[in-house]
C-alpha cells in the first residue's frame, strides 16, 4: 500500500451517522408495528365482532322504535273507538228521550 492508498484509507474513514437517523428509524419501526397489529387476525376478529354487535344494536333499536309506534297507533285507535262508542250511546239516549217526548205531546 503506497502513500496515496494510505491517504485514501484515512480520507475514507466512516462518517458518523446523523443523530436523526436512529430516531426516525425507531419511529418508522414503531408505526410499522402498529400497522401490523391493525392488520393482525386478532384485530380483524375484534373489529368484526364489534361490527356485528353494533349492527345488532342498531337493528334492535329500529325494531323497538317500530313496535312502539304500532303500540301508540293501537292505543290512539282504541281511544277513538271508545269516544265513538260513548258518542253513539249518548246519541241513542237522546233519540230515545226525543221519541218519548214526541209520544207524550201526541
Amino acid at each position, binding site marked *: 500500500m503506497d502513500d496515496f492508498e494510505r*491517504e485514501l484509507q484515512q480520507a475514507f474513514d466512516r462518517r458518523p451517522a446523523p443523530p436523526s437517523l436512529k430516531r426516525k428509524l425507531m419511529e418508522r419501526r414503531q408505526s410499522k408495528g402498529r400497522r401490523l397489529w391493525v392488520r393482525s387476525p386478532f384485530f380483524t376478529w375484534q373489529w368484526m365482532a364489534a361490527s356485528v354487535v353494533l349492527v345488532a344494536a342498531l337493528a334492535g333499536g329500529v325494531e323497538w322504535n317500530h313496535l312502539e309506534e304500532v303500540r301508540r297507533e293501537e292505543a290512539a285507535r282504541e281511544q277513538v273507538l271508545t269516544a265513538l262508542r260513548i258518542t253513539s250511546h249518548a246519541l241513542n239516549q237522546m233519540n230515545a228521550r226525543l221519541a218519548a217526548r214526541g209520544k207524550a205531546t201526541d
Partner: protein
Amino acid sequence: MAHDWQPDFEQLVDEHQSMVFSLALRMTGDRGLAEEIAQDVFMELDRNLGRLESADHVCFWLRRVAMSRSADALRRRRVRGMDLWVEMEDVHGASAEERSSPLGARLERLLGALPEAQRAALVLRYQEDLTPEEIAATLEAPLATVKSHLQRGLKLLRAKAEVHLKEYVRGGKYVGGA
C-alpha cells in the same frame, strides 16, 4: 437453521449505522438520500433478522444491501437526469467534513466523479478495508472484474488527484492530514 445468536435490533443500529450511512453517502454524495437509504436498509434488516445467523453475517448483509440500495437510488436519479455529486457540491458547499479535513473531502469529491462500479469497489476497499475477494462477494461480481475496477479506479483517482490536489502534493508524495 437453529443458532444461539440473539440479535438486538437497536444495538445493531448503534453498531452499524455509521458504516451503512457512510457507504450510502460515498456512493450517492447526498446526505439526505444517504440517510433515507440507511433507514430503508435497517428496516429491511428488521424484516430479515430472523434469517441472519451471526454478527458477521449481519455485517456482510448490511454492506451488500447498502451498496445495492445506493445503486438503485443512483439509477432512479439518473433516470430523472440528476447528477448527485454535482448536487452535493452545489447544495452543501463547504461541509463540516471539508472544513475539518479538506484533503479528505476533496478526495471524496474526486471519488464521486469515478464510474459507479469503480467507486463501489474503492469505497469497500478503503472505507471497509475489504479484500478483493470480500468485495466480489459483497457486490456479487466476478473477482477479476472487481480487481480490474480497483486497479482502474485507483489509477483514475490518482490521475485526478494529481491534477486537482496539487497543493497537497510535495515532491510527488501526498502529505496527509492537511
